[in-house]
C-alpha cells in the first residue's frame, strides 16, 4: 500500500461557524481549514465546543450559522446521510445483536456490491484492524479495545472521504489506549483518509495529530502542529492546558525584559510594551540546574538562586519544588533528569542556582482578576 501524506489542498473548510443553544453560544465564529489526508485533533476541556463542532461537520447537529465545505462541495445544510464520512463514537455504538461481520457489512449492503464482494471486503477490514478470527462473534464477546477496532472497521468500510472520531479512546484502559492510538494513527496514515478526532486528552492529541486545534469556551485558541502548540503556545490558556507550565506574576520593563521583584530576566521575544503586567512562564523541563558555586548574578544569563524544597521521584525524572522569596509563596516546579540530580548531587534542603533559558521564558497576557 502506498503511503499518503497530507497535501496542501484543503479538503474540509469551516467558515464563520456559530452554534447557539438557546441563548448560550457553544461555538463562536469558528473558521478552520483541514488539508487532504491530514489528521486533526480538536482538543480542549469539557464544554469547550469540540464535540459540537464535530457534530456540525457530520451534520448530526446543524450549526446555527456558517458554512461547511467538504471536498469542494457545500454540505452546510445536508443531513448526515447525504454527506461523506465515517464516524466512531466513544460508546462504539456497535449493533449488539449483529455479529462482528454483520456490523462491518452493515454499510456495505444496498450499495451495489455483491455478496462475495462484501464478504471479501469484511475479511480485508478484519485483517486491517488485526482481528481476522473474530468475525462470527458478537460485540459483547470482545474486549473494549477490540470493539473499538470493529467500530473503526465499520466506519472505514465504505471508504469515506472523512473519518470522524469522537473521543474514541476515552472508554478504554490506559494501556489499551496508548496501544490503540498508535494503531489508529498507523491505519490513518496507511489509508490517507482525512481525519478529525475530538479528545480532551492532550497526550493523545500530541501523539496522534498532524495539527491540533485547541478550543476553549467555543472559540479556537490556537491551531498548530503538536510541537508548535507545545513549544510556542499562543496564550496562557494553551500554555497551561497543554503540559505543565510555571507561572510567575511579572511586569515588562526596559528592553522588554521581565521583572520579578527587583530582578529582571531576558525572555523570548514578545510584543508587550514597557509597564505591561504579564505572566512569565516556563515549562518545568526547560529549567536548567547548575553546579555549586555558579554565579547567580551573571547579567548575561537568566540565573537565580533557589532553595530545593522538595523532590518527588517520578520514574524517568525528578520533580523538584524550588523556592525563592521573589516568587512569594508560590513554588517553581522543575523536572531534572536523574543524571543531573546524580551529577549535581541534588538533595532536599539544598541551596542551588538554576537558569531559565532566554528563549524558553515566555511572556503572556495576565488574565483579568479571577
Amino acid at each position, binding site marked *: 500500500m502506498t503511503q499518503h501524506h497530507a497535501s496542501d489542498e484543503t479538503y474540509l473548510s469551516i467558515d464563520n461557524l456559530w452554534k447557539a443553544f438557546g441563548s448560550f453560544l457553544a461555538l463562536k465564529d469558528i473558521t478552520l481549514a483541514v488539508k487532504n489526508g491530514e489528521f486533526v485533533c480538536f482538543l480542549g476541556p469539557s464544554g469547550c465546543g469540540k464535540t459540537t463542532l464535530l457534530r456540525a461537520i457530520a451534520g448530526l447537529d446543524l450549526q446555527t450559522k456558517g458554512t461547511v465545505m467538504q471536498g469542494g462541495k457545500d454540505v452546510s445544510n445536508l443531513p448526515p446521510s447525504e454527506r461523506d464520512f465515517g464516524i466512531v463514537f466513544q460508546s462504539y*455504538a456497535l449493533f449488539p445483536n449483529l455479529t462482528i461481520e454483520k456490523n462491518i457489512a452493515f454499510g456495505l449492503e444496498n450499495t451495489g456490491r455483491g455478496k462475495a464482494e462484501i464478504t471479501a471486503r469484511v475479511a480485508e477490514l478484519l485483517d486491517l484492524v488485526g482481528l481476522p478470527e473474530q468475525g462470527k462473534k458478537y460485540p459483547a464477546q470482545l474486549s473494549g479495545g477490540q470493539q473499538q477496532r470493529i467500530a473503526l472497521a465499520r466506519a472505514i468500510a465504505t471508504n469515506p472521504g472523512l473519518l470522524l472520531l469522537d473521543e474514541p479512546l476515552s472508554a478504554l484502559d490506559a494501556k489499551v489506549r496508548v496501544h490503540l492510538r498508535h494503531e489508529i494513527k498507523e491505519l490513518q496514515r496507511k489509508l490517507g483518509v482525512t481525519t478529525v478526532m475530538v479528545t480532551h486528552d492532550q497526550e493523545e492529541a500530541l501523539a496522534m495529530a498532524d495539527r491540533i486545534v485547541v478550543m476553549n469556551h467555543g472559540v479556537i485558541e490556537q491551531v498548530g502542529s503538536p510541537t508548535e502548540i507545545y513549544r510556542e503556545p499562543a496564550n496562557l490558556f494553551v500554555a497551561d492546558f497543554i503540559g505543565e507550565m510555571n507561572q510567575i506574576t511579572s511586569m515588562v520593563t526596559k528592553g522588554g525584559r521581565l521583572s520579578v521583584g527587583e530582578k529582571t530576566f531576558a525572555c523570548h521575544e514578545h510584543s508587550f510594551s514597557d509597564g505591561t503586567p504579564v505572566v512569565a512562564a516556563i515549562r518545568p523541563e526547560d529549567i536548567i540546574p547548575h553546579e555549586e558555586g555558579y554565579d547567580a548574578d551573571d547579567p548575561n544569563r537568566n540565573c537565580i538562586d533557589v532553595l530545593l524544597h522538595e523532590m518527588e521521584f517520578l520514574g524517568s525524572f525528578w520533580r523538584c519544588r524550588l523556592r525563592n522569596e521573589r516568587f512569594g509563596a508560590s513554588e517553581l516546579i522543575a523536572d531534572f533528569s536523574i543524571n543531573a540530580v546524580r551529577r549535581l548531587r541534588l538533595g532536599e534542603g539544598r541551596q542551588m542556582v538554576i537558569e531559565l533559558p532566554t528563549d524558553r521564558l515566555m511572556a503572556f497576557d495576565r488574565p483579568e482578576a479571577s
Partner: protein
Amino acid sequence: MAGISDATQMPAGPVVKGKLSRDDILMRGGMMVIALYLIITLALPLYAMLSKSFSTYRVELSQYEFQISDDAGVFDGTILNAEVLNQQTGAIDPAELNTGSDGRLPVTGLFPDFSFRSPVMYQVRNTSDEGRFLVGSTLQDGTDWVTLDSNTFRRVQLRPVKATGFDNFINYFSTPALFNSIKNSLWIAVVSTIVTVTLAFWFAYALNRSCMRYKGVFRLIAMAPILVPSLLPGIALVYLFGNQGIAKELLFGASIYGPIGIVIGSIFFTFPHAFMIISTALAISDARLYEAAASLRATRWRTFWTVTIPGARYGLISAAFVVFNLVITDFGLPKVIGGQFNVLAVDIYKQVIGQQNFEMGAVVSVVLVIPAIFAFAIDRLVQSKQVALLSARSVPYQPQPNQRTDLISFIYCAFVGLFIVGILAICQYAALIKFWPYDLSLSLNNYQFDKMDGGGWASYYNSIKLGLFTAVFGTAIVFFGAYLVEKTNGFRTGRALFQMFAMLPMAIPGMVLGLAYIFFFNSPSNPLNAIYGTMAILVICSVTHFYTVSHLTAVTALKQMDREFESVSASLKQPTMKLFSRVTVPVCLPSVLDISIYLFVNAMTTVSAVVFLYSPKTSLASIAVLNMDDAGDIAPAAAMGMMIFYTNAVARIIHLLVSKGVLVRTQAWRTR
C-alpha cells in the same frame, strides 16, 4: 474570555436551515400519522364529549304557531302561539321543556277540545328558522303553514333547540342524588387506597426484606388479580356475604352490597398494581444505608422510619395515586356489588344506558375526569423523581435470615395469599355448583353460556379476538410511535406534543373514553361512523385506552439503546427503517412482547371502555360477566369470569415461553 456567552454576539442573518433527508421526512410523516391516530381516537372524542356536556336542549314554545278551523275545515285566520296556549291551559309542565337531544313533545294537550276523530283541521308552523317539529317521523323546519287533519295532528311532536351553557352542570349540582356520588366515590377511593397500600407495602416488605420461603409462589399469587375483570371479586363477595352467602353472619347484619363490598373488591383488584410499584421501590434501596444505620446503633424501628420509609416514599405515593385512580374510575365492581351506593362511574352508565340522558352522562364524565387527571398528574410527578434516586453505585440490600421475622412474614403473606386465592377459588367453586346454595352437586351447566343472556360462547371468542387484535395492532402502533418520537431529529415541538398525547389516555377513565366514542363515532356526520358497532372500534378503543403504559414501556426500552445507532446508520447511508427492523426491534423484543401481553390481558378484562361500544355481534366475555350478573345468572357470570382468568393465565405462560425461546434464539449476544 467570559464564560457567559450571549447569543447577541452572533451576526444577524438567516439561520442555517437543514435539508431533510428521506428518512427525516419518513419519520416525521410516520409520527404525524400516529399523532393523527391519537387525535382521532382520543382528542376529538373527548372534545365531542366536553361539548356535549355543555349542550342543553329545550323546547321553545314561542317558536310555534297554530290555527284551528271550524268543523267545515275553514280557518278564520286566528293565530295561536304555543307559549300563550300553555299559559292558558298549563298543559305542559315547564320542567318538561328541558330535555335531551332526542326530546319530543306532543302538542295536543294545548288544545283541551282536541279529539282525533273530530273533523276540525289544524295548521302548524315554525315562527323562526330554528324551529323544528315532527309530523310522524317527517321533520318540518320551514316557516310555512302545514295543514293537518286532527288524526295526523295527534302525531305532531315539537323538537328541542340546542344551546350551549352551564345548565347541565347547574342541574347536576342541584340534584343531590347525583352529586352525592362524588362524595361516595372519593370516600371509597380513599379508604381502598389506604388499606391496599398498607397491605401491599407489608407484603412487598416481607418478600424483599425477609428470608421466608415460597417467595416466588407469593409473587405469582399477588399478580393473579390482574388477570381477571375487576367485577369478579364482586361476584365472589356475593357468594360469600351476599343475601345467600355462606359467611353472611360475619358481617353482623351489615350489607355487602355497598361500600364494604366495593372496598374489599377494590383491594383485591388493585393489590397487584400497588404491590408491583412498592416492591420496585423497596428493591432499589441501598444496603450501605442499612450498614450505616447499624454502625450508628440505630434500633430496627428507627432504621425503618429513617431509612426504609424515606427510601420507598416515592413508591408509596405513586402506588397510592395509582390505586386511587383505579378505584375511582372502576365501573365493573360497583356495578356488581355497589347496590344502592352510587358512584360516579356507575352514574355515567345509568345516565347513558338507563335514562338515555347523554348530556348528563357527559357531565358526570367531566366530573370524574377531574380527580383522575389530578391523581395521574401527581403520579407522573412522583415517578419522575423516583428515577433520580437510582444510582449505579447502590449496593442491593441482602436480607439476613431471622427465624422470628421470617415466620411473621410468612404468616402475613399466607393470609394475603389466602384472600386472593380464596376469591378466585370461590368463583370457580360457584361456577361448578348446580344451584347455589340448595344443590351443591357439581356440574358444568353454568358453562352453557349459549343458553344465557350475554352473548354466549361467541362473546368469549370475541374477547380472544379483541385481545389478539389489540395486542398485534396496539404493539405495532405503540412501539413504532415511541421509536419515532424518541429517535426523530429536531422537530421538538411536534415531539413534545406527541409525548403529551401519549400520556393523556392514562388520565382518561375507561367509562369516559367509551362515552366519548359514542358521541364522536356514532355521529351520522362522522365519516368514520361505519366502524361503530364493529370489532374495529373495540380494538381502537382498547389500544387507545391502554396506550400510555405501553408507550412508557417502549420508551424505557428505547432509551437504553445507544443514542448513536441512528447517527452511525446515517453515516453509513443506510435507511433508518433497516436499522429499526434489523437492530432496534430485535434488541427490544422482550419489551415488545411485554407490551403485547399487557395489551392482551387488559383487552380481555376491560369492561368500562367497551361497555358502551359493543354490539350484539361483538359482545365480549367481560361484558357477558356483567350482563349475566345483571340478569341474575351469577354462577355463569362467575364461570365466564374464570374463563377469562384461565385464558389470561395461559396467555401469560405462552408469553413466558415465547420470551424465553426468543431470548435463546435471537439474543445470543446477551451472553458472553
